[in-house]
């Protein structure tokens, strides 16, 4: 193999940086959707590589459902401060009050659907024309069909049949006023690629990604963290369990996995050995219907 040959992580990194710079070159008001989860932390790391020593040509934006893990929020604030970039937070709680939205009911009532309203309002408030997100095509089959530059209409809707063909490495981000583009720089990364990259680049993560003791309830084979946001029934059995989070979403719809992994190496070993997909194991919200993600995306979900 010649010396002029890139390792797969270098190639993925280069592809992502190229996409970031296309956003900077093609759009007037982009934003980076940043949740404090591992994929968006990797995005920030890539953006540093793409734009330093300059500033990011976009702010970090977090749509705060109010159901986030406190560890992730704390990490979010610290990272934004450390790199000296602007962080905009908009709360789903405020949208619920202002628009008199009806919250989901039930044991694990989730604000996953409602956050789309806040996201679309935020896009309108700041007139964002591109929102960069950490979604990956290996996550879910509706994502597998999405373009890297994914155009949404003024209602934020994704129409799979109207996607633009994406040829070579040429990205068409041309839109009309009111429309916006969702951009996914790590589309071609798998879960394992992300973890291997985190290990190689020594990227720091919130503590909940590593094994820790937590009070959880076991529900249909999944461990859900005890929090004020879920309904505890008398029949529920609450246990102390050593767990870690494989993905970080809302406390109401993200399940933990039993784990002893205290280092990135341990986590990678566990992921290589696992027999369940990332979303299948940890996302309560995707189990509702087979086409759950497809439906949410059509409605403007990122």
């Amino acid at each position, binding site marked *: 193999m010649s010396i002029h040959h890139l390792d797969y992580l270098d*190639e993925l990194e280069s592809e992502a940086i190229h996409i970031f710079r296309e956003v900077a070159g093609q759009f007037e008001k982009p934003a980076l959707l940043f949740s404090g989860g591992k994929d968006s932390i990797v995005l920030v790391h890539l953006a540093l590589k793409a*734009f330093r020593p300059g500033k990011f040509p976009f702010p970090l934006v977090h749509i705060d459902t109010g159901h986030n893990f406190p560890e992730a929020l704390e990490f979010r604030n610290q990272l934004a401060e450390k790199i000296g970039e602007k962080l905009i937070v908009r709360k789903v709680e405020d949208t619920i009050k202002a628009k008199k939205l009806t919250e989901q009911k039930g044991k694990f009532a989730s604000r996953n659907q409602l956050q789309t309203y806040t996201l679309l309002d935020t896009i309108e408030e700041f007139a964002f024309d591109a929102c960069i997100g950490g979604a990956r095509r290996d996550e879910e089959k509706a994502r597998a*069909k999405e373009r890297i530059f994914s155009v949404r209409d003024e209602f934020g809707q994704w129409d799979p049949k109207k996607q633009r*063909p994406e040829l070579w490495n040429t990205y068409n981000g041309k839109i009309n006023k009111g429309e916006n583009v969702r951009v996914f720089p790590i589309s071609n990364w798998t879960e394992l690629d992300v973890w291997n990259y985190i290990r190689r680049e020594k990227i720091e993560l919130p503590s909940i990604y590593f094994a820790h003791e937590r009070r959880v309830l076991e529900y249909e084979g999944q461990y859900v963290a005890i929090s004020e946001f879920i309904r505890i029934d008398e029949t529920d059995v609450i246990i102390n369990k050593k767990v870690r989070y494989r993905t970080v979403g809302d406390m109401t719809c993200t399940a933990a996995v039993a784990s002893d992994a205290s280092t990135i190496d341990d986590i990678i070993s566990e992921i290589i050995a696992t*027999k*369940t997909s990332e979303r299948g194991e940890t996302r309560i919200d995707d189990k509702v219907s087979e086409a759950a993600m497809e439906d949410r995306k059509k409605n403007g979900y990122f």
Partner: protein
Amino acid sequence: MDILRFITAGSVDDGKSTLIGRLLYDSKSIMIDQLEAIEKQTRNREDGEIDLALLTDGLRAEREQGITIDVAYKYFTTPKRKFIIADAPGHIQYTRNMVTGASNSDLIIILVDARNGVVEQTRRHSIIASLLNMPQVIVAVNKMDLVDYSQDVYNNIVIEYADLAKALGLEDITYIPISALNGDNIVEKSDVFSWYDGPSLLHLLENVEVEKAINLNHARFPVQYVIRPQTEELHDYRGYAGKIISGIYKKGDKVTVLPSATAATIQKIETDGGKEVEEAFAPQAVVLHLEDDVDVSRGDVIVLHKDVPQTSQELEVLLCWMDNKPLVPGNKYLLQINSTRVRSVVKDIEYRLDVNSLERKYSPDQVGLNDIVKATIKTAQPVVFDKYKALRANGGAILIDETSNVTVGACMIQ
């Protein structure tokens, strides 16, 4: 470990979905929950076998309408390589999808049904592979189980295909007999082919040289973005950010900035958000600094001074039309090649290429979805390009409808 991007061409009838499902399943890239989901869907089948084709099935919108939308991407990894599969539907009306999927691939697997041999569809896929200048081709003769694993059947198909390949100028071709349904010769070499002494399909995919897809001879660097911190300590910092699409750049290289043809010298190359390196190569994303105070902005291309591409306002292209609305000669479109976007007009349509026979129909009345035509495009500003056949990374352009903003055409510059 590196990455191989490949596309599979064939229809459901050729066993394309089964093949992809088999590669994912046998390389253990399918998780239990995903398997359970397709088991649910196959529960009603008589034979009780899992239908691996369902693994590549996508959206509810597709299932309901019995169509396949565009290109889906699938991933699997072996200890040797990461693989990205562009899964493009292969039916007659989907030239557009195959062109799209192939444009980002280093290799194409053309599936041939052993019972049918080289048919019209095989011809079409091969013609598109040659138009897109695919670096490598694997011809997988599938459903060998249905012809009793016959060596004669296989050999005849190889001979027939070799003629076609020769006519099309396709060079690097590897042949392999398989049965995707039974997993023969997919991951492991199968004993049923006692007469076949080549490796399994996966072994082939793991060992083909991907370097062929990356051109290291002609240095091309389209500028995407100018980094100017304008802070006190970095007052004079002016870095040209982009991705080296081909070739190698070294500190001190004499370069030319196009299209203005300004001469300059590389003062510094940075990677990793500010780390200095002596040289960088495709496909690295870097920041170049020039010694000279020249005017460089997004859309410019920095090349080595001794190897300059063409600059012109008139392009001869093979154009694949991708929109439902027909192409109207004389209409204006935006032409985008890498990070350069200019206004353009499609002037003359010389002929339409029949993708089944390669026959040319001169002066066609209309150009519609999935048509491939030879055309002349005039641009408002000079465009920096290479011939597609010589340098894929700088020879492909897209056309954008100025009113709908949709990508309506793919151009291979001649």
